[in-house]
């Protein structure tokens, strides 16, 4: 075995291990699963300029492969009723595979991905191999998780974001659409869309909730869905969607007549959809774009599931947990980076970490990131058990927003001028971590 093989094999072996175990769980072989969809060439719009407007991706044809009488749902997880901070074996496996992938593949690619505003396809494919897109897909539809997977999703998000938060966003965004359909979709919607997320060629997809305006409140949407005969007509705009130009499928939040805020499943080919590039201070590897929705006509069946208001609120809260998971990973990255830096950097004749002013700032990063982590785990585990979690999600959100930002800032501060230049990743984390207080939707656990 050559050195290169050895280097490569650690990440890939753990990914393979993950897959094998997943397959065992699924009781079927992922790679042999029947391909039910026609391959459609993906349109590439990398390098689109700000304000440049283009059609949404051509998109594949989604067709129901099987019909189930009623929607398939993942089971709630059951607790032994004991306080426990240890992930179960399955979660630990995902966590370890995610960490290995993040360390060996994601982190080394992060600088270029940030500069190019694109995540290499190879990385996205590898993430898909880890199974990140199908965590929320019920077993009946080819998924691998019997039980709900919010904690698992958080652990994977955390692990990937330790590599890079923007790449993590790019890689995990399609899974949010699959999870939304798996949690709330009708039998028809599940059968039509979910198989695409369990195969090899997972479509780019976006859960579109955030709108471009100050004080955005996901419960007060400006995107509207009017009823017109038997159809829905959607109009509005959605912000900061990952890989927006590539997306083949959207789940879009709109204020619906007679319902209130609700989610709609919209294929990229729908007439009236267009995408505008929307670069932001961070999350740049996700090639964020804005979706413009101009009188898009949809069949009655486009409403996700039964359009229950409580499903929508749950969706908003679940996505906040997902963003906190990413913030926890990025915050840990800051901590892991500043520790050796402060120990090695000398000033006034000794390591700067010998000074309390520096050392205490590092203590605070450690304390606050651990607090964020625990709050995020709590919210996610409550969701998995089917318990109320709006409060816990809100708490995690506050911590992700406030402490995440502070940790990002402190990371740069500890490196001083060196933190401000791109030679070190802390300036990137400074930009990325601000997203945890801004983003709504887009990711889901």
């Amino acid at each position, binding site marked *: 075995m050559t050195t290169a093989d050895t280097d490569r094999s650690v990440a890939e072996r753990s990914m393979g291990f993950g897959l094998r175990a997943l397959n065992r769980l699924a009781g079927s072989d992922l790679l042999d699963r029947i391909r039910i969809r026609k391959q459609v060439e993906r349109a590439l719009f990398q390098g689109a300029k700000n304000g440049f407007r283009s059609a949404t991706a051509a998109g594949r044809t989604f067709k129901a492969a099987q019909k189930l009488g009623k929607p398939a749902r993942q089971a709630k997880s059951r607790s*032994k*009723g004991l306080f426990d901070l240890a992930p179960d074996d399955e979660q630990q496996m995902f966590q370890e595979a995610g960490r290995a992938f993040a360390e060996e593949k994601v982190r080394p690619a992060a600088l270029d991905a940030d500069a190019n505003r694109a995540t290499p396809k190879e990385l996205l494919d590898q993430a898909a191999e880890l199974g990140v897109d199908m965590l929320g897909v019920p077993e009946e539809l080819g998924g691998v998780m019997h039980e709900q997977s919010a904690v698992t999703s958080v652990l994977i998000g955390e692990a990937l974001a330790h590599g890079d938060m923007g790449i993590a966003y790019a890689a995990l965004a399609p899974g949010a659409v699959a999870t939304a359909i798996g949690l709330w979709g009708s039998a028809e919607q599940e059968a039509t869309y979910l198989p695409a997320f369990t195969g090899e060629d997972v479509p780019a997809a976006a859960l579109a909730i955030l709108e471009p305006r100050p*004080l955005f409140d996901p*419960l007060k949407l400006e995107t509207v869905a009017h009823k017109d005969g038997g159809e829905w007509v959607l109009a509005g705009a959605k912000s900061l969607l990952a890989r927006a130009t590539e997306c083949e499928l959207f789940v879009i939040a709109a204020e619906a007549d007679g319902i209130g805020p609700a989610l709609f499943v919209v294929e990229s080919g729908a007439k009236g959809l267009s995408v505008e590039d929307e670069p932001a201070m961070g999350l740049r590897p996700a090639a964020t774009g804005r979706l413009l929705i101009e009188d898009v006509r949809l069949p009655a069946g486009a409403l996700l599931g039964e359009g229950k208001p409580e499903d929508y609120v749950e969706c908003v809260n679940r996505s906040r947990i997902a963003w906190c998971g990413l913030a926890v990973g990025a915050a840990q990255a800051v901590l892991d980076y500043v520790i050796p830096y402060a*120990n090695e950097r000398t000033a006034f004749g000794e390591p700067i970490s010998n000074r309390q002013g520096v050392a205490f700032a590092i203590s605070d990063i450690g304390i*606050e990131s651990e*607090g964020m982590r625990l*709050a995020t785990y709590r919210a996610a585990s409550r969701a998995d058990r089917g318990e109320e979690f709006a409060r816990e999600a*809100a*708490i995690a959100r506050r911590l992700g927003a406030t402490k995440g930002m502070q940790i990002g800032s402190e990371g740069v501060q500890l490196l001083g001028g060196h933190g401000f230049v791109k030679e070190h990743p802390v300036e990137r984390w400074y930009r990325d971590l601000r997203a945890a207080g801004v983003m709504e939707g887009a990711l889901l656990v």
Partner: protein
Amino acid sequence: MINLEIPKKFKPLVSQANQVATEVFRPISRKYDEAEHSYPKELDMLASLIDGMNEGSDIGGAGAAGVRRESNGDGGENRNGSNLSTVLGIIELCWGDVGLLLSMPRQGLGNSAIASVATDEQLERYGGKWAAMAITEPEAGSDSASIRTTAELDGDEYVLNGEKIFVTSGDRADLIVVWATLDRSVGRAAIKSFIVERDNPGLKLDRLEHKLGIRASDTANFTLQDCRVPKEALLGSPEVNVKEGFAGAMQTFDNTRPLVAAMAVGVARAALEETRGRLAAAGVEVDYSTPALSQHAAAARFLEMEADYEAAWLLTLQAAWMADNGKPNSLQASMAKAKAGRTCVDVALGCVELCGSVGYGENELLEKWARDAKILDIFEGTQQIQLLIVARQLLGKSSAELR
């Protein structure tokens, strides 16, 4: 399986402790804040009740006496034991009144020290007694390695000489756990703790302090003058092990810091709950699904404080859970203490501001909680000491490198 909820089996204990807090502590809270140095006799009956609770269960009680590090001998099986149950009980009781909790007979920090490091013989001998903890000296607070109280072996007895201040429940307790050095020239390794009976003629009470808060709890200053204790009164090993250094003496703190963090969590929750109710009465409801910044500024502030509270609560449970499962938790214990200590002060003072003159006035307990809160960021290691411990652990530094 990740689950960060209060375990089912501890719910009766939490509910009992909450009833005690509601029915016993709260009604006399203001009375003993005003009557500083008078003994809260209401607690005697309660202490017997809690002793009974401790006896009657294998899961530890609601006080500090239950804390003992568990060795995890059953192959990594998740355990919820006395560290966690004790922390949960303390949170409830301090939601009632932290000063009264500190005055609870037989639940002192000295009891935790004994529970942490005592031999079985010592447990037998000193069990059922109320033990206070005497570490601080006029010239040595946070720097407990530089204490000057000496212990000299004389035949079968140690002779203690020195001065101790800030001894919580020092006047009321049956026993005082006194930290003293066997040999000042050796440094940390020579510091040991000794159990001194309160009626020892060599132990002289100098005075009781008048304080900002926790006024129900008496804080005593002592002089030890040729205070003779039997050889068996030394807690832990009498060996002066330079390699082990301070570790033996500091082990106690890994167990007691989560307890003080729990006290801070309890006080913070009291302030938050009271404030939530008063804000609601004033027409401000905190909504968890609406973004904080789209709500009333008071609601946004409340959310920010509640988030810090939750982080402190979870860090505290984590530290206790690790102790129950035999995992080294020195880092997490200090993280919990640091976060809970500062959060408690920020939250209690913040709640006073949110409630205005109602919060500031003595008709309500908010101002009292804000005064009580401050000590929780000071004793058992100040905020700064906790940050120092956390930093040394994270950075892999010795106390000589990072001072």
